[in-house]
């Protein structure tokens, strides 16, 4: 129907059982978060009603099967109504397989939401058209039964949807990252399963042969990152992906990528820590880890997309930065971005990404120096197999040729100077990386009374809060940091000079980005909203805090 969708998949760290729910929000305008409240609640058990009834808005409909659970009218929130729907009974007409009840429920939900039956049937045909036997026919008929039953016993929601335009793409953040990697020319992924990064490997593994990408499930995250570094050194664009626990294991290797100047992309999809934490819940608590990972100083970049469309772009940017500057680049995602689904316009996922050859040094170049001193800090990188350019890359400190200066040369004055030169060469790259990265962006009205400062997936709820605040007469805007590191201090100071009141919003306990911003610019953001309960931000929470700050802050 061409509508925009945002979907939040909420589950627990169990394989069977537990309370699992999926929340979908749709509109002709793009929703950036799961939003507040619900207009339709489909309960497969009583717990669903108990947990989610408080979110129901006036006009909402609760669908349930009275064979499964009971809801008394007195329990319904004011202004809501119930549709007791005999899903089991209707589904049994076709099969004893209980899963067909979903089609009945979908039919009823489609009627109430204003989705035409032919649209639903199209979706079911796409999903089940290739299944053997009667499965498609059962689904079509059962959904029709549900649709017609609702037509007789319920009414169309006043928030019903309407056709909006051509179909959009619908994908999770992880799928967007996987696609972005493929579009950027990634040829190798090594990964160890860890929620919420795992589905990056799933998508790439499913398309590995088609796209010619080697996908390796490694024995652990140590191996995963080292395989990616080896593959990159060997001449292909390579990536690894993990969550905070796995990234903790990758820390030493990240420094090796920095020292050996091997391009590397690492996706770090954060989940609630510390330690195992809440494996299926979200947080932005690993920023300090990403900033500080690895002993010593070396240049790196951390990109923090806020939705799937940006995740696609950021992953392509990450490969470009990694390659151009020969550094490790981290794509900072989190569970909320990685696993939520959102619509993406086709133009937002361009596939004609330039993929330059990695053979940049002519074979046989005389006096080739792998770590030659250059103004940008980037030295020409030969690939193994190229005649006449042999060099040894090392995690030890080395000179321009790659000869290590860590043993018999260390401490000798000329080599002390060499060490400083080589450190300066590597660190010089940061200035170039800063210039080549996306600067902080304002969204919303200029001269707003309050500016939200946010990064990563939190930005979505802020984007949805801005119009809510505007409707209440409050002019607010957003200062969003698509590049978290290196933080462009000049651009950030200039941007901050344009703000009045500010509100720092982060999904962690200590305000890790606020600390970084203060360290880099000296600017202290006093008004904060930190969340660390494992749940994503909801727009109403931002509205409430913004109103407090506007009144008192």
């Amino acid at each position, binding site marked *: 129907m061409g509508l925009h969708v945002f979907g939040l998949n909420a589950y627990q760290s169990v394989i069977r059982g537990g309370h699992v729910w999926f929340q979908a929000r749709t509109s002709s305008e793009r929703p950036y978060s799961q939003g507040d409240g619900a207009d339709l609640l489909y309960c497969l058990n009583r717990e669903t009603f108990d947990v989610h009834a408080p979110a129901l808005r006036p006009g909402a409909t609760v669908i349930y099967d009275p064979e499964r659970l009971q809801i008394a009218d007195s329990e319904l929130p004011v202004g809501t109504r119930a549709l007791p729907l005999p899903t089991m009974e209707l589904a049994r007409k076709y099969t004893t397989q209980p899963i067909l009840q979903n089609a009945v429920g979908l039919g009823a939900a489609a009627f109430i939401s204003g989705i035409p039956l032919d649209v639903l049937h199209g979706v079911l045909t796409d999903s089940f058209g290739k299944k053997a036997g009667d499965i498609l026919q059962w689904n079509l008929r059962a959904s029709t039964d549900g649709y017609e039953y609702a037509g007789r016993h319920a009414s169309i929601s006043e928030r019903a949807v309407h056709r909006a335009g051509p179909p959009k793409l619908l994908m999770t953040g992880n799928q967007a990252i996987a696609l972005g990697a*493929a579009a950027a020319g990634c*040829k190798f992924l090594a990964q160890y399963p860890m929620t919420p990064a795992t589905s990056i490997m799933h998508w790439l593994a499913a398309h590995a042969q088609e796209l010619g990408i080697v996908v390796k499930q490694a024995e652990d995250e140590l191996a*995963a990152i080292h395989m990616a570094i*080896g593959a990159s050194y*060997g001449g292909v664009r390579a990536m690894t992906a993990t969550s905070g626990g796995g990234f903790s294991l990758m820390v030493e290797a990240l420094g090796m990528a920095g020292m050996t100047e091997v391009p590397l992309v690492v996706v770090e999809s954060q989940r609630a820590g510390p330690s195992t934490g809440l494996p299926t819940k979200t947080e932005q608590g690993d920023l300090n880890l990403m900033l500080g990972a690895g002993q010593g100083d070396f240049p790196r970049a951390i990109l923090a997309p806020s939705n799937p469309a940006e995740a696609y772009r950021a992953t392509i940017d990450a490969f470009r930065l990694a390659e151009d500057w020969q550094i490790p680049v981290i794509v900072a995602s989190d569970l909320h971005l990685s696993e939520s689904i959102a619509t993406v316009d086709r133009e937002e996922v361009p596939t004609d990404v330039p993929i330059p050859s990695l053979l940049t040094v002519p074979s046989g170049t005389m006096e080739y120096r792998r770590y030659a001193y250059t103004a940008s800090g980037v030295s020409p990188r030969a690939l193994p197999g190229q005649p006449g350019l042999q060099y040894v890359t090392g995690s030890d400190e080395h000179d321009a040729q790659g000869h290590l200066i860590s043993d018999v040369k260390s401490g000798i004055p000329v080599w002390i100077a060499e060490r400083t030169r080589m450190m300066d060469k590597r660190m010089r790259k940061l200035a170039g990386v800063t210039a080549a990265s996306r600067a902080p962006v304002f969204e919303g009205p200029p001269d707003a009374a309050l500016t939200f400062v946010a990064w990563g997936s939190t930005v979505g709820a802020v984007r949805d809060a801005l119009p809510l605040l505007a409707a209440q007469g409050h002019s607010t805007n957003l200062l969003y940091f698509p590049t978290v590191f290196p933080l462009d201090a000049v651009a950030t100071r200039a941007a901050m000079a344009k703000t009045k009141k500010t509100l720092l919003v982060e999904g962690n306990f200590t305000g890790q980005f606020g600390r970084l911003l203060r360290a880099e610019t000296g600017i202290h953001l006093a008004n904060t909203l930190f969340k660390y309960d494992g749940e994503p931000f909801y727009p109403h929470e931002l509205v409430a805090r913004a109103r407090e700050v506007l009144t008192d802050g």
Partner: protein
Amino acid sequence: MADTSARPVPTAVGPTLPLIGRSDTKPTWCPGCGDFGVVAAVEMAVKRLRIPSHNVVIVSGIGCSSNLPHFLSSYGFHGIHGRAVPVAEGIRWANHDLTVIVTGGDGDGFGIGIGHLIHAMRRNVNLTYVTMDNQIYGLTTGQSSPTSMMGQRTKSTPEGVIENPIDPISLALASGATYVARGFSAEVKHLADLIADGIQHKGFSLIDTMSPCVTYNKLNTFDYFRQRVYKLEAAGHDPTSLPKAFERSIEWGDKIPIGLFYRATKPTYEDLEEVLQGGPLWTQPAGLKGHEKVLDEFI
């Protein structure tokens, strides 16, 4: 199945394709170190196979022996402690035209890096792993290693080691390595034969090389091995038999076998990875251009 792991062995090497030799970096090992014999054997083996030096990558971790890549004229990757094997795997999968040799010590391979080693062996990745096993930690000045013998006194075990040593040979046999050998660094020609065979072998080759540390290991010295080693080839050992290889692998005492314990022909990881059947990964097209239909599943 396409034989993508066959390495090109040029019949003639011109001036632009120089054979491997020593680099201008001189080894920093202690005089008399066993590792001198190993670097000589690696050089000899690669030279004999006439593999151009630019098609060879020597990967190592950290430790005295892991400095080896610096002393030869091939490409080298001197990484971090215990992680040489996954780096080498990544290099192979990016470009399986390259001959990838892993070198390093017993601490690097059988201590901190043992997990990677076992998995690389079960994958039968086409790598040649030459350990320089001195049964001691040298670069950190003499602590016990995973292959130190029971009772050995070291700086970290002044009362003697109270753990059983790892036996790399039986470990490799059990893990699926398809070429398993033991060398002795004083027997350079014999060791070079083993390494050359290992490089030519399709699959994971482990050549555990007894390479005495003259500074910190006063037990497992050159003399210790000279008095004990015997060659499996001369003893009529059948390297195609896994049970017989296991039998020989547990010999460690008055007699210590060196030579080839086991060799088997099995598909390599590179043979079985479908994507690599299209040629070395780095030569294959990249990107989504022409693959736009993958976006259809998201509509």
